[in-house]
């Protein structure tokens, strides 16, 4: 199958679903405050496009900041845990707590303790995103080739050299795998945080707009927000996938170019 066909197939499927949806709405004369058709949603998107895109950029700012923070701290924490079995046994359970605690339940406290909205959202989105990076990177650090480790030992490598030249490259594919998962989680985290924190006003993000619109029963506008958020999440995933392939293209099986198989 060619690349074009690969891209066309899902697009055609999407178009089919949207057409059926539009037809169903029209034939059954469903009112737009119950379920608007795709064309109505697109019109709403067109009408308030600049405003919604601006709100999206507010949301993405938090998402990307949280993702970068999660990448840096997650890799750092994994490196720390990899230093000793004892450190891992002592601290890893807390990383698990971080993962299984719904951020909705933590949000009220963070909102009380921190009064900068951006920081509140950042903390909550970071909490949602960091665990896959910690656990994947830790796995990667531990799966370095034991013979290579021996070789480093034989040549008297320092701890820093071993981390930089052996452990970090060994963990990179795992770290990037975690990052791809965390990209989506950071966005979900931001959206949930926005909804819980109840941000409003000109500097509020797209999730807040979605909530506002649904309160006012402007369903077309709410669904337009939803479509934009989904598209942003999808693009984020693709971007991280491309980044991962670029970084690994020379050596990792996951990024092997098609021609050389």
């Amino acid at each position, binding site marked *: 199958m060619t690349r074009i066909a690969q891209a066309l197939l899902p697009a055609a499927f999407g178009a089919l679903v949207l057409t059926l949806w539009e037809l169903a709405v029209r034939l059954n004369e469903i009112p737009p405050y119950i379920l608007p058709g795709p064309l109505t949603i697109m019109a709403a998107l067109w009408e308030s496009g600049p405003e919604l895109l601006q709100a999206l950029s507010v949301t993405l700012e938090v998402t990307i900041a949280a993702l970068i923070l999660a990448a840096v701290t997650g890799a750092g924490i994994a490196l720390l845990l990899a230093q000793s079995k004892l450190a891992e046994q002592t601290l890893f359970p807390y990383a698990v707590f971080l993962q299984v605690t719904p951020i909705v339940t933590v949000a009220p406290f963070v909102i009380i303790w921190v009064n900068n909205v951006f920081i509140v959202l950042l903390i909550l989105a970071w909490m949602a995103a960091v665990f896959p990076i910690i656990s994947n990177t830790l796995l990667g650090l531990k799966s370095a080739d034991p013979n290579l480790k*021996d070789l480093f030992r034989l040549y008297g490598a320092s701890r820093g050299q071993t981390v930089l030249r052996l452990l970090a490259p060994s963990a990179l594919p795992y770290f990037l795998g975690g990052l791809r998962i965390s990209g989506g989680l950071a966005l979900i985290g931001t959206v949930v945080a926005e909804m819980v924190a109840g941000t409003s006003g000109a500097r509020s993000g797209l999730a807040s707009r979605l909530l506002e619109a649904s309160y006012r029963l402007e369903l077309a506008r709410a669904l337009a927000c939803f479509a934009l958020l989904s598209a942003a999440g999808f693009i984020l995933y693709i971007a991280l996938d491309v980044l991962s392939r670029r970084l690994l293209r*020379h050596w990792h099986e996951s990024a092997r170019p098609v021609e050389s198989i």
Partner: protein
Amino acid sequence: MNDPAVVLAGVSKIFSTGTAALAATDLSIAEGSFTSVVGPSGCGKSTLLRLIAGLTPPTSGRIARAATATPLATGFVFQEATLMPWATTAENIALPLRLASVADAEVAARVSDAVARVGLGGFAAAYPRELSGGMKMRVSIARAIVNGPRLLLMDEPFAALDEFTRFKLNDDLLELWQRNRWTILFVTHSIREAVFLSERVVVMSPRPGRIVADLAVDLPPQRDAALRLGHAFADQCARVTSALGDAFLTQAAS
């Protein structure tokens, strides 16, 4: 005679799992010699090399290395090529020099010399996955020799290769050895390979490994392909084979 490069006195190894890999062993390796170790699978050959390299401590006994064969001047070639997949041929070979913080200019010079010596010119910028099995093994050998080791420990380096490549690499290795006079300890499953390469063949018994025969190879120092076809070569192989057979018989009897 010089001081020996490596002396093992009563060295044994019992792993924490309780596996006795090596029974008390005495062994002395002369400086500049080429010694092969043969023995059945699992008899402790790899363990012996790892003990000598200092990668695992002995359970009892002492290992003395000549001052010229410190761990830093030791080259180790594993059974698999054991390359860093994220690094090019040149960067893989440069590893020992990088870890010793050698200056860039000297690294470049020594790496290109090592690349040429193992016949990998033109592949310095290739990644391991672009290389064949034999080429990867040559990268591994180049890495082991790039820092001018006095002691080269090789653990079945050619076991995974076909005979053509193996013969070629045998010839290359001999030539390198004759030129540089490293001390080489070479583990192999192949009796013919051991006889062809070495001055001395050490035969080990099944686990727990003991040295059951220590044979000087009675062949001229200049070895070439024609040698493999002659009677003298076949005779030497037969000697090692019967020593190995005896090792199995004693094992079965005890």
